[in-house]
């Protein structure tokens, strides 16, 4: 396990130049931030070519950074955005890696237009359902996904429940929602 820590990052930088746009190695789970459009290149390198093969994708999370309470919103230091978090795992080396990517909340800041990020289904087939779930609940459009449909909510559900500004519909096919 010589290739750990910053050394590993250097290799990543060399293999996929200009993909890593930020890092935090001091956090509880150290993470690196990747440019959204380069996510597939990075993942492909990590899964196929890196000295530590990250052959398994454990989890994809989308975090909606939006403060709906105007009082609190005045205090926050960040701009509203969506953060994608990829938790990778290497079964051979038994180490993990956290990738993050920042997306706008809406594509081109047009409400209703979903933010886009390339799908990593081509790297790990298991990403299929995870991306469908993120699309379903957080409203991220994964370009290049073979079958991006809602998975947990009904097909005709409106809105993306895990967004902070989501409002539960008053009624769904005659069933009272609130």
């Amino acid at each position: 396990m010589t290739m750990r820590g910053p050394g590993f990052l250097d290799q990543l930088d060399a293999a996929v130049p200009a993909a890593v746009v930020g890092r935090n190695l001091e956090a509880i789970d150290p993470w690196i931030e990747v440019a959204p459009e380069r996510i597939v290149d990075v993942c492909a390198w990590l899964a196929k070519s890196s000295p530590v093969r990250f052959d398994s994708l454990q989890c994809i999370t989308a975090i909606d950074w939006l403060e709906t309470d105007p009082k609190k919103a005045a205090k926050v230091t960040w701009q509203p955005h969506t953060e994608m978090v990829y938790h990778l795992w290497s079964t051979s080396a038994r180490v993990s890696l956290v990738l993050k990517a920042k997306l706008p909340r809406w594509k081109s800041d047009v409400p209703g237009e979903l933010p886009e990020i390339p799908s990593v289904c081509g790297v790990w087939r298991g990403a299929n359902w995870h991306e469908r779930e993120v699309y379903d609940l957080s409203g991220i459009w994964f370009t290049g996904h073979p079958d991006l449909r809602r998975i947990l909510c009904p097909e005709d559900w409106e809105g993306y429940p895990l967004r902070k500004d989501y409002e539960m519909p008053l009624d769904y096919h005659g069933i009272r929602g609130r």
Partner: protein
Amino acid sequence: MAQMLDDDPRIIEFDVRTDEMLVNMGPQHPSTHGVLRLVLRTDGEVVSEVEPHIGYLHRCAEKIGENLTHRQWIPYTDRMDYLAAMNMNLGWALAVEKLMKYQVSEKARHLRVLITELNRIASHLVGMGAYGLDLGTFSPFLYAFREREKILDLFEEACGARLTYSYITVGGLTADLPAGWLAKCEAFLEQFEPIIKEYHALLTTNAIFVKRTANIGVMSRELAIEYGCSGPVLRGSGVDQDMRRDGEAIYTAMYDGYAFEVAVMKNGHYPRDHDYPAVPADAVLGDCWHRFFVRMLEVVQSMDLVRQAMDRYSACKGPLGEPLKLTEKMPAGDAYLETECPKGQMGFYLVSDGSAIPWRVRARSSSFSNLAVAHELCRGCLIADVPAIVGSLDIVMGEIDR
């Protein structure tokens, strides 16, 4: 579609070609373990495609988590894998403790091992019995439930609940064990140990059972890893990975000093620390039989661990320690932790903005990933194999739909 089927070598083509038929297996079907709906594309008895439809039990627990404090969310973890609620509680509690860098007392640590391993036995008993049911034999199911009942009795005595315990909580456990509990637990183990042989006779080594499961739904280790499968499903494919040994420090520290061997086929054989039945000749690594067998091994393994934990727990003289306050503030930041639950690796991801209420909660379900691989395994099998394969994945819909 036709092209794809032509290329797929697993599809056997007959001269008498019948029409394809779309069949709904579930959501109200006896062998889909709750409310799973499988849409089968069948040609006669041969299944060419299986598409799972999930979400019938969806309650958006992650959204609920954003509106409760970390300890208030514990009961919601109970309802994920309701067959192993203790392990769910532990996963969440450890994730929060990881973020808060909190260390529980030594006594609490051993008690946690004791309780979760006992719950693992209970969960595997259900998985085993229900698998027998999937294959059409009813009696082992009730034999399994008979023993599980005794574990639930023990849990009831410890925490008052039989299914949704909320016993393990952030910062420890809600209560210490009542007096005399350990003796009862020991009595249960004594009584349970010989019964495992019965299960092996009725299922593991039963000729029809072997015929139904051996070389069915074979999952290569690459496939298992790529789909993020975990737990017995992954180990059944021969991947030597167990989060109790390979996981993160805060979790593996719990098992410090415990002797156990990961139940996986390594170098052509399974652990030999107990008197297990031999692997049948026609079973290949990664088939339904191996997934089932790994569970059976883990029952014995967990019994060992429970015994060790009881010794260590009774040796601890100090107090159990109080759990954290309901409104204890968490530091800003995020933490992700996977624990080895009976069904696989359950991951909890927690993002905090500094308050007691998490900003974002994410539950990475093991059954979710394990089920995602079902369509790969079921391609080209017979209808009767579908329950066999899905049953061998041992899914719990509460965890998949969250």
